[in-house]
């Protein structure tokens, strides 16, 4: 049997102090520190979510004016594509033909394949229009007044060398529709 280690009172006190310090360290690192860290994380999460909610509330406060703006633009333009893509393209080409007939302009159309995006479809058409200066400008005016979402990517307006009184316009158009 091993003899019991007898400590002197000073040594015993040191052992008790060391045990107390170790115990405290253990409690702090096992219980207090994780609780503190978790609390800090949650506080940050709460702050981020509060900011998000504030931003959402700000957005919702703007909802009536956004709604008015949206209805104004959708009333003025054919924004949403209610028809199938092919039908919408044909309708646009028909409308362009109709404008060219009304303004007495010779029109050639070169439709390009549709480029679908995640929310916007872009249908590209190249127009080659020829006519007298006044009629061609009237055609361009009518084109830019169409109630469709048209983006003029390129416009080339030039005189025709052989025909001095006539102009030729090459227009690359994008017809946008929201899906």
């Amino acid at each position: 049997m091993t003899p019991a280690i007898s400590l002197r009172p000073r040594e015993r006190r040191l052992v008790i102090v060391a045990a107390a310090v170790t115990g405290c360290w253990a409690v702090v690192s096992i219980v207090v520190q994780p609780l503190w860290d978790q609390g800090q994380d949650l506080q940050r999460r709460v702050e981020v979510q509060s900011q998000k909610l504030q931003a959402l509330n700000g957005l919702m406060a703007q909802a009536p004016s956004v709604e008015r703006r949206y209805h104004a633009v959708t009333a003025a333009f054919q924004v949403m594509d209610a028809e199938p893509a092919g039908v919408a393209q044909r309708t646009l080409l028909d409308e362009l033909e109709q404008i060219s007939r009304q303004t007495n302009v010779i029109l050639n159309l070169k439709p390009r394949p549709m480029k679908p995006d995640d929310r916007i479809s872009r249908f590209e058409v190249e127009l080659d229009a020829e006519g007298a200066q006044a009629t061609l400008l009237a055609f361009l005016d009518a084109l830019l007044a169409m109630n469709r979402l048209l983006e003029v990517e390129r416009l080339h307006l030039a005189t025709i060398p052989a025909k001095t009184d006539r102009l030729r316009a090459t227009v690359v158009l994008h017809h946008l529709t929201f899906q």
Partner: protein
Amino acid sequence: MLDLSPAEVRSDVRHREQVRQLATVGVLLAAVLLAGSGWLSLRLARHQRLAARLTQALAQAEPAAAVVRERLRTAALVESLMEDRWRLLAALSGIFQQTPPSVALDAVTVERSRASIVLRGDADSTQAVLEYIKQLEGLEGVRGVELKYSTRRTTPSGERTAFELLLHQAPEAGKIS
């Protein structure tokens, strides 16, 4: 006060006193740790409840907000397209209005992606071209006018100065969604 107790009794009393003090310090320390942990746990529970409420509120508000966001983007896109059309018309109208009889334009090319307009034509003299440049620089939405070339040519109607100008549009003028 004189302590007449025997040395062993005195030592025993002092020892018990030390043990009591140590126990008190230990209990106090444990109480502090317990109270701290309790306070932290309460704070954690409160934050958890708050986070759960916020998550729920966000989940409820999100669908309506997504609709508003989408409509806002659509309206902004349509407005920017309109702005672009208006700028194009304004630019063309400005160019035609500023073109004097001494200048004849052969070609006008508008490039949306480059935010530029190229003018090609001829004028009575180089001086007329320079004056035309000055007038174009005064147009709204034009950031600068660059003379690409200017050459004297003999044509059936006499000596003419052929030129090409590059109009740089202001940044917002060429921008679309």
